């Protein structure tokens, strides 16, 4: 009989519209309240009904933040689910499903559909599954009942009642499975006091903590998550949230909002960002702060709208005509999605440059329990100056950063022009002045670089191989290296992707072998490292639209280290 003592990876799969999303929300909340550490991520098709979607829940007795490939417990809610995830099933995988519908042996037969129909509708199969897992994982029956009642509290009485009946029926079945499959994990009651945030929520909350009071966007998966969350937060917090006609309008609105003294952010994905690039150049020219959240998905063009990739680093790095400084941040996990989104506003305001928060679908749709974010040490710094009558927006300074006034605050006027301009903002074609203005804008790049956060190094000195990652792959790489357990293997992770911190080269030069792990086909970050440091780079690349799992990184890193 399979007994799970440390961790358990549960996957539920079904058609879009079968309520996989609801199952995920209910189970993560329930299991967390029961003292389990929980990690959840989903993969889904770009359609509203049909197809095949799945959610992976990793339940553990310690913190978990990365995707496991192997499925321990699988609940297929549709006959196609087995084929969809066959590559993740092993002989040890316990499958619980409707034997009548799903042609697979061996399987623990639970007639979900028949029971759901008895309750009133096939749709209640999802609540049955929730109850079953709650029972199997020994969640307190009364707590479970209260939780479900609260979740369906706003629904009509019939919907609430039938869902609760389904959960309770599933719960008894789950309890009854003892003997066929057993879960005996140490639980930590303090987990119940922790929070569950998706990457999308963390970016939106971080932005608010950074003083964001203007968010505009055109909906595009997976960047829409931040728009939706911000719109919900705007019910209690003063932030203008506007859905604009197109991404060109979006970026121009955001820049003009900063010009007027707002703290503005846009959120999009690669295709939408491509439309914004002229605006990014405008921000460079008029030295406007700007915060751009780009949640990457696989391209080119429409690509795979609901899948993940890190393929837009070069797009963001080189976006916009002309030469001007920029900052690119790529949060390594959900905590950093909050902290770096908060910091992005201070950086943008301080240096008057575009700041990019580069995430991806995987980070947007992933969550795990973690302590509530604290705002104590994260002030929203403001750099707006009151203008005097002789104010000039682009006055020359040693750092290249001029005091930034806003219209209506002081005796001066604030003049900005996308043409090359003089210190006052008036158009010039004076060649000398043009060169001085270019130098002024680029001087800021040096100051920014000196402020760049160094990469996070994990490992012992005297490493042979250095595994390098950037952005959301951090938890998977970290866990893979931990599992491999070799002392000559170290991990270097970049959340501040551009400009690279001055320490970068020294880390790379100590390694005999540098392996950059990236979710793209051409090794874009590796190319950047090579360009900046001259080091030889090897890569582990994945670009099929699915995120790295811990196991595949273990395999890939071991293969590369043997080479």
């Amino acid at each position: 009989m399979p007994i799970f003592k440390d961790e358990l990876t549960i996957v539920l799969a079904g058609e879009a519209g079968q309520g996989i999303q609801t199952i995920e929300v209910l189970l993560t909340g329930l299991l967390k309240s029961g003292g389990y550490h929980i990690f959840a991520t989903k993969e889904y098709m770009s359609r509203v009904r049909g197809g095949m979607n799945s959610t992976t829940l990793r339940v553990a007795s310690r913190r978990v933040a990365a995707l496991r490939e192997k499925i321990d417990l699988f609940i297929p809610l549709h006959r196609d689910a087995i084929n969809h995830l066959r590559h993740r099933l092993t002989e040890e995988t316990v499958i619980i499903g409707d034997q009548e519908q799903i042609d697979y042996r061996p399987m623990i037969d639970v007639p979900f559909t028949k029971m759901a129909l008895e309750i009133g509708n096939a749709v209640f199969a999802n609540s049955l599954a929730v109850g079953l897992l709650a029972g199997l994982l020994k969640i307190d029956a009364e707590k479970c009942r209260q939780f479900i009642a609260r979740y369906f509290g706003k629904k009509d009485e019939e919907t609430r009642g039938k869902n609760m009946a389904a959960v309770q029926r599933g719960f008894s079945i789950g309890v009854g499975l003892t003997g066929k499959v057993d879960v005996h994990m140490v639980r930590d009651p303090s987990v119940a006091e922790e929070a569950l945030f998706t990457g999308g929520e963390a970016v939106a909350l971080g932005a608010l903590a950074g003083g964001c009071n203007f968010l505009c966007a055109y909906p595009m998966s997976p960047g829409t998550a931040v728009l939706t969350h911000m719109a919900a937060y705007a019910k209690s917090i003063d932030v203008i949230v506007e859905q604009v006609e197109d991404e060109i309008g979006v970026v121009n609105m955001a820049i003009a909002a900063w010009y007027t003294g707002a703290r503005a952010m846009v959120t999009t994905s690669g295709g939408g960002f491509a439309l914004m690039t002229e605006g990014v150049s405008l921000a460079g020219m008029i030295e406007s702060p700007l915060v751009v959240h780009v949640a990457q998905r696989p391209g080119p063009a429409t690509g795979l709208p609901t899948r993940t990739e890190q393929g837009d680093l070069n797009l963001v790095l080189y976006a916009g005509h002309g030469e001007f400084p920029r900052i690119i941040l790529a949060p390594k996990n959900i905590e950093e999605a909050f902290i770096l989104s908060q910091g992005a506003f201070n950086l943008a305001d301080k240096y008057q440059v575009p700041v990019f928060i580069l995430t991806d679908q995987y980070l947007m749709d992933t969550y795990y329990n973690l302590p509530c974010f604290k705002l104590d040490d994260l002030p929203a710094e403001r750099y707006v100056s009151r203008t005097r009558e002789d104010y000039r927006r682009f006055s020359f300074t040693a750092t290249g950063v001029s005091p930034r006034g806003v219209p209506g605050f002081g005796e001066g006027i604030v003049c900005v022009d996308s043409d090359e301009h003089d210190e006052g903002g008036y158009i010039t074609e004076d060649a000398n002045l043009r060169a001085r203005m270019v130098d002024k804008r680029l001087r800021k790049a040096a100051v920014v670089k000196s402020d760049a956060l160094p990469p996070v190094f994990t490992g012992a000195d005297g490493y042979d191989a250095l595994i390098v990652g950037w952005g959301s792959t951090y938890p998977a790489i970290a866990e893979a290296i931990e599992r491999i357990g070799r002392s000559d293997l170290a991990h270097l992770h970049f959340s501040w992707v551009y400009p690279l911190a001055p320490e970068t080269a020294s880390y790379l030069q100590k390694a005999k072998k540098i392996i950059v792990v990236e979710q793209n086909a051409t090794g874009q970050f590796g190319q950047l490292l090579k360009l900046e440091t001259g080091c030889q780079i090897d890569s582990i690349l994945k670009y099929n639209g699915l995120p790295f799992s811990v196991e595949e990184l273990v395999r890939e890193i071991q293969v590369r280290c043997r080479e």
Partner: protein
Amino acid sequence: MAENRFDFPHNIDMAWCPGCGNFSIRRSLLAALDELGVVREKTVLVSGIGQAAKMPQYINTNFFNGLHGRALPAATAVKASNPGLTVIAEGGDGDMYGEGGNHFLHATRRNPDIALFVHNNMVYGLTKGQASPTTRVGMVTPVQTAGVFEKPLNPVSLAVALDVPFVARASSADWEKTKEIMKKAILHRGLALVDIFQPCISFNKLNTYQWFKDNSYYLEDDYDSTNKTTAFAKAQEEFPFPLGVIYSNRERVPFEESLPVYAHDKRPLFERTSVPEKIEQIIKSKV
């Protein structure tokens, strides 16, 4: 006469051709701002790119001279971020109706309280004489070598159809009448379009001062601009084109007045700081 604070105390080098209608439009705008007593430090001119869009460079006030076609989203954001500012968006027919056409459509839906002055010379000037969305059929240009055959846009009838709450047509040939129309547009609550006929003496040999004079007339004093049906009929009239305030609607609520951020707090966004307690409340709700 007292000095106009919106003018410069020194000579400025303007990039317009001698005899250009832009000089007259500038004169109207300077006088309109002065006569309305608008506060120079609380006024923002927003423009895109083109010869008309250089206007902010020659008015002594705040300006945001951004990208081609993008004046309207920028102006909307300026007004939304600080509703206390007087915001004017200005540019040419190519800038506002061509490159910025989509923003024009959606600005009519949003209805921010900004005045929109479009210098309509029916040709591209700065790029040297190509057809614009308002170029008349038959005009031969270096690009439309067999003559324009696309139907020209009538921005005034488009704006009335979209219920832009103030729609007017003016002519640079009469700076005083244009000034009066501009003043009404600035005072009107909501989006106020003034399409301004203007000859391009360098690139448009068809629509000259004389052509505009022969093909336009001012609306009678008793014309009722508040009736949308008759206003739309009037807006569709061509040859001659009516000049004056063609449509006005005092019912529409401006964009920024509907924004919840100003429901209980009238301060512009730059005067506000974030409220950590409220953010912490949301964070705690995720437990």
